[in-house]
């Protein structure tokens, strides 16, 4: 996937031959897009528009008499809403930890897989395993591992002599937070590795050879040859994983339900609870739009930062 900012003004082999765009081309392009646009338009555009419309309303199913149009009042109320603010703090921390771990582990894993060694094929297959696991199953799996009474982790650590007695890992706020982040990373790592591996596979081997001739060390080779080629795939990873992390729900819901206290009450969990349990559709829709806008702004931020530094045109 390429990023729009990069696309603009960059000549491509195909378009060079026909620089003039004709009306016929545009019509043809939209004709080709029509099926996708119709499906997305009919099925998603209305729900999205409707949810924004709802977010401008005071609308709780339990209070039909109080329904009314309130402009941006739902959004303004968020500034003084302790539930939202605490959830925002947790979410930001969650996104940062998940992204950090994903990028570090994903890059390391992709680099390892890009080398030749015995068993590379096996590891390459193993990396796909977490991708095949539905979020709900992922949550259930980590529950049985971190369980305070029968969990595998407790058993393992005790047998290794690292703990004296079974610990309730999910009951401390920090523990629960780190474990949910860890479980989320495990589940989403494969997609990251695939993208990064795909990026690595396109580095021309002459570049490495050149670096070898220059007697560049491992670190130098990484920063001078590999990293520039990885910037673009990393950007895609950052955008997609930011979207995923802001929307992370299944795993957390099954693992902690948002607790203990507010420790893992990320905005997606709060959002689902507000809409479906508290039936506050107005406020819930406002939460959703905050997530959307934050994700959008961050994505644009990633793109423009890299674009301005001119590193994107590898």
């Amino acid at each position, binding site marked *: *996937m*390429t990023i729009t900012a990069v*696309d603009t003004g960059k000549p491509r082999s*195909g378009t060079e031959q*026909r620089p003039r765009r004709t009306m016929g081309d*545009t019509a043809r392009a939209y004709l*080709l897009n*029509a*099926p*996708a*646009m119709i*499906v997305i338009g009919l*099925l998603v555009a209305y*729900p*999205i528009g*409707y*949810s924004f419309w709802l977010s401008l309303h005071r609308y709780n199913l339990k209070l039909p008499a109080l329904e009314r149009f309130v402009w941006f009042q739902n959004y303004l109320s968020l500034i003084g809403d302790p539930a939202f603010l605490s959830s925002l703090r947790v979410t930001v921390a969650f996104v940062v930890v998940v992204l950090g771990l994903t990028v570090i582990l994903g890059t390391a894993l992709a680099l*390892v897989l890009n080398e030749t*060694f015995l068993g590379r094929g096996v*590891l390459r*297959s*193993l*990396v*796909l395993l977490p*991708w*095949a*696991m*539905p*979020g*709900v*199953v992922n949550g*259930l*799996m980590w529950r*049985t591992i971190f369980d305070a*009474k*029968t969990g595998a982790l*407790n*058993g*393992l650590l005790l*047998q290794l002599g690292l703990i004296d007695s079974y610990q309730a890992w999910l009951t401390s706020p920090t523990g629960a937070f780190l474990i949910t982040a860890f479980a989320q990373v495990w589940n989403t790592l494969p997609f990251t590795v*695939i993208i990064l591996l*795909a990026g690595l*596979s*396109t580095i021309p081997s002459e570049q490495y050879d050149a670096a070898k001739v220059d007697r560049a060390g491992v670190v130098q080779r990484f920063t001078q040859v590999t990293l520039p080629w990885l910037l*673009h*795939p990393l950007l895609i990873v950052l955008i997609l994983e930011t979207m995923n992390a*802001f*929307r992370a*729900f*299944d795993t957390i819901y099954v693992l902690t339900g948002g607790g203990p206290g507010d420790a893992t009450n990320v905005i*997606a969990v709060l*959002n*689902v609870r507000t*809409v479906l349990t508290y039936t506050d*559709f107005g406020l*819930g829709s406002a939460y*959703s*739009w905050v997530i959307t806008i934050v*994700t959008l702004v961050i994505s644009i931020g990633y793109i423009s930062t890299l674009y301005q530094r001119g590193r994107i045109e*590898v």
Partner: protein
Amino acid sequence: MTKKVVLHVLAIGFALYLVVPFYWIVNLSFMHEVDAASVPPHFLPDNPTPANYLGFVNPSTDQALVGSNAVGDTPYALLNSLVVAFSTAVVNLVLGTFAAYSFSRIQFRGSQLLLIVYLLTRMVPGIAIIIPFYLVMRTLDLLDTYGALILSYTTFALPITIWILKDYFRTVPRELEDAARVDRCGWFRMMWTVFLPISAPGLVAAAIFSFMTAWNEFMFALFMTSSISSQTIPVIAANFATDLNTQVTLMAAAGVLAVVPPLVLVLICQRLIVQGMAAGSVKG
């Protein structure tokens, strides 16, 4: 030399990280329920039993009680998941190919904006649209059918599918098309016989991506379905967790079954997936 050592240590470390958690539920799935709760835990089943898996075909009275017949439903849920995920992948490829072709070959007004709009639809959280979406499905009389799920997941996966495909299509040399055109070959025929076969890695990568999106999704599946005629495996897996008669070994077995079909699929296609994604990852 040190590099080799570091490499192998890292490789083994990552292999353990990836496989040990899954191994634990595989291990549980072959245990008797009593052993699953033992302290210290058994890292190998003492006397392994296939009973949990056999239960899905022919549940015992105890097993049948779990999760309002979640055990009996599991094979059907797997089938439903397969049908839904496969159909989602196919529908996505068809719709995505047309759209992606336009982005890769035609310079047209609004193309940038359209691409962004596609992606924007993926930034809105599912919970925001689930109620109106439910309504649309109800109006179309699609609730509790495969149709509702296939349509939902198509809209989820289509934007990314288009992005993956358009990048791959750009790597296909234009000369091939021109050659086909010289042969007075129609566009559809050209696509079918020349363009798409060459784009196979991109198509596979996009198809797998949509398949996984459909396979893993939980919340829409929960809301759009109400019976085993369309419930998918995450919905049934959740039943194992919430029920009063739950058995952790059965739940583990269902979890393992939920992972196997997509895993087999990605293992078969792994080389093509990386190739297919490579086009877009780097080319500007």
